[in-house]
Structure formats: C-alpha cells, structure tokens
C-alpha cells in the first residue's frame, strides 16, 4: 500500500478552527490525512506536544492560529511564533527536518486557504516520507520507569 502521511492539525478555537468548520460546511476538499485538535489558543501549544505527536505516529504537525494582532488573548500567537521559530532552529541543528512542523495564520474567513494548506502540507510530508521514532532504547526505558 502506498505511504499515506499522518498530519496533525492543531487549531486555535477563535480563528483557525472556525475556518476548518467553514471549510467543511462549504464542502471544500480537505485531505483525510489531516486530523485536527482544537486548542483555545496557539499560545497553549507547548513544543513538547508537537514532538509528542511525532513520537506517537504523526509525520508532521500543522499549527494554525489567528493573524498577529487578532489574537483573542492579545499575545498568545506571538508566543507561539517565538517558540516555533526556536523549535525550527533546534530541529535543523539536530539534522531533523524542520519542514515537518509548520505554523500558519488562518483567520475564520480563510477556509479556502485552510484547505490549501492542508493539501500542501500533506504533499510535503508525502515527499519527506515517514517520520521514524527509534525503538533502540525505549524497551529499557520502559523497564526502568515501571521499576
């Protein structure tokens, strides 16, 4: 069977989740590779969540929030931007592909852009191939954690 990437979309409640809703209502085509998770604000997206998603089987993560200046909590998306930028630098320095994680601003009215992004990101992941999580040491780590 051909490889189908798994893409996790993390969408902020106020803008991007509405865009995704509207995309559904307008019957826009959104790839089934995308599974979405709603958060109140992109400012809540701890980088640990992003990497945990990869650890648990996602091949990429698309974080969408309100445009800068439109954040319901004023500066949540600014925090997200700073975190995302440093995370990308870190991934690149470790030789991991920063392209697997993407941050975009999608307002409630931009359902078409939302659908396009989902297609674009899925295509990108298809080219990158599956993200591999090494099993080499997890067995021992498990033993230790459980005593």
């Amino acid at each position: 069977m051909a490889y189908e990437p798994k893409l996790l979309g993390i969408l902020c409640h106020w803008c991007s989740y509405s865009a995704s809703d509207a995309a559904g209502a307008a019957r826009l085509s959104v790839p089934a590779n995308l599974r979405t998770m709603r958060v109140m604000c992109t400012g809540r997206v701890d980088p640990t969540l992003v990497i945990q998603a990869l650890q648990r089987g996602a091949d990429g993560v698309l974080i969408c929030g309100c445009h800068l200046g439109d954040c319901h909590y004023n500066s949540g998306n600014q925090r997200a931007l700073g975190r995302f930028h440093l995370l990308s630098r870190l991934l690149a320095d470790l030789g991991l592909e920063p392209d697997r994680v993407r941050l975009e601003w999608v307002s409630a009215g931009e359902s078409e852009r939302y659908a396009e992004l989902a297609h674009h990101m899925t295509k990108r992941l298809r080219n990158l191939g599956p993200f591999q999580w090494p099993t080499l040491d997890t067995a021992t780590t498990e033993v230790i954690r459980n005593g």
Partner: protein
Amino acid sequence: MGKLKIAVYWAASCGGCEISVLEIHHHITQLMDAADLVFCPCLVDTKYADVEAMDDDAIDLCLFNGAIRTEENVHLAELLRRTSKTLVAFGACASAGGIPGIANASTLEALMERVYLTTPSTDNPDGVMPQPSTDMGEGVRLTLPKLLPMVKALHHVVPVDYTVPGCPPEGKQVWRVIEAVVSGDLPPPGAVLGAGDRTVCDECRLEKRDTKITAFVRPHELIPDNTTCLLEQGMVCMGPATRSGCDARCPDVNMPCRGCYGPAGDGFNEDAGLKMIGVLGGLLEPGNEDALRSLMDEIADPVGTLYRFGLPGSMLGRAAQAPGNRDDAE
C-alpha cells in the same frame, strides 16, 4: 553484616563524578568504615579481570559515571550490571548522556574529521587517524576500543536501578544516597535519588518580577543584578525546566542554570529543552514577526544551550538517533 562492597566506575567521563564522591568530606571516614572500594580505576589499582572473575551480584553498590561512547564502555556496563546488586547511573553523563552526548548533534564521521583534522589547533599534515587496531610489527598489535555511532546513556544499554543526576552530583546529595544504600532505606527501583521533585527556580533566591525579555545576553556579556531572576535579565537560565536538588547553586552566584540536574518532573517523559522553549516563548516582549524571530535568533547554539547535559536521554535526542530522519548526509 560484613562490609559493603562498592565500585565506582568511569565510562566516557571527565573524572568530576569521582571528585564528587570525595565531596562528602569528613563522611569519607564513615564510608570507609562501612564499605570497601573493590573496583575504582581512578583511585585503586584493580583490573577488569578482577571484576570479570567476580560472581554475579558480588558488588553491593556500583556508582557508574560517564556516558556510553565506546565498545569498552558497553562491555564494562554489562560486566558491572552482572556483578552489581545495585547499579546506579551516577551523574548527568550516565543518566542522560551528559556533555559527551552533545556529540549526537553531529555524525561520527563529521566528529572525527573535526577533532583530528580541521580544528584550528590541529596540526596533522599526514591526516593520521586513530585506528581500532594497529600492527606495530614484531607480532605486536595495539588496539583501541571502537566508538559507537551515537553516545548513549547507561540505561540505553543495561537496566539501571537508580539515577543520581547532576554534573557532578552535589556532595550533600551524594552522602544522602550513600546513607540510603548503607541503611537499606531505598525507594523502589527506577527512582531518581539525590534530587528534589520540583524545579531549580523553586530553590532559587532570585526574584521574578514578570519582566519581559527584550534581548538575550550570554553570561560574559552582563554583570547581572544579583537580586533579580537571571532569565528576566535575558540570560537563558534553565531553572524552570530543571529538577531541583542542587540548592540553585549557579544562579546564586550569577551564573544561569545550565540544566545539569536533568528535566524536572518524570524525567523520562519530560524534555527539558522543549519545556524551556515553551518558557522562553512566554517571556518575550511582544512585537512583530521579524522582531520576535530575531529575538529568538539571539540565542546562540540551541542544542548546546537547551540540551547541554542530556541530549541522548531526551525525547528529541532520541528522535535524532533514527538515521532515516536526518536530512544531513555529511
């Protein structure tokens, strides 16, 4: 009960962990009353063969420090696991890979080339590289242990009973651990010993005033105000993401915490670097896209800053161990 048999071994280690055992100061006499040092290449003349000849579980306590970098390290880890009742990953290197573990940000080939051929201080016109085996003629063959492709923590190669974090572990904590072993008052295996369960910030005397960061500085660039949180003065202080236990000794003397006690929380599930990115994002002075990006660009060397003591043991560091994920062929 006879005297306890104790071993202290260094794998890919700097020797600092051995020194930290001496930092129990006058308690050393108590330790020597209660225990014999049966194997410790740093301090007593014992050979690997002596340990190889030992029965299973012959050693009561082994404080294993240093990372796993070579095949020799793996051999000793397996040997000391077999011969030790209680095997402790002692110090940041054995617990999580430590300073040697930063090597995992690069490939072994790139590392060898850098160290033996291209550093500004290298003078090696013939390009001589260390070899695992060299024929010296007259039937003499010299060998060196092979390097593993990646640096590992002790628990990546053998099951470990306890972890004592720190680079090196703090003397007071070392004594606490030894006392627990001598008295048999130990928690169930798997526990972290000799550390707290909160964060360095929790023990830090410097005050947080909710000041936003407008610029990042490195320790040599600023003489900080020694009443205010260093992070809020723009130094990347790992205190919020680091396990307590050292009494916040670095920030106490104006040095930001570098994270040597490992991630706070359930160490194996937490990733201190990722947590720290979360913290930093929340402290930036709000601004436009370019301002936010260039502020984050002021942080020099994200890997070395965020994973100075535990890249191999971290969640992200493990991802970087899968060759399929790496986009750098060189």
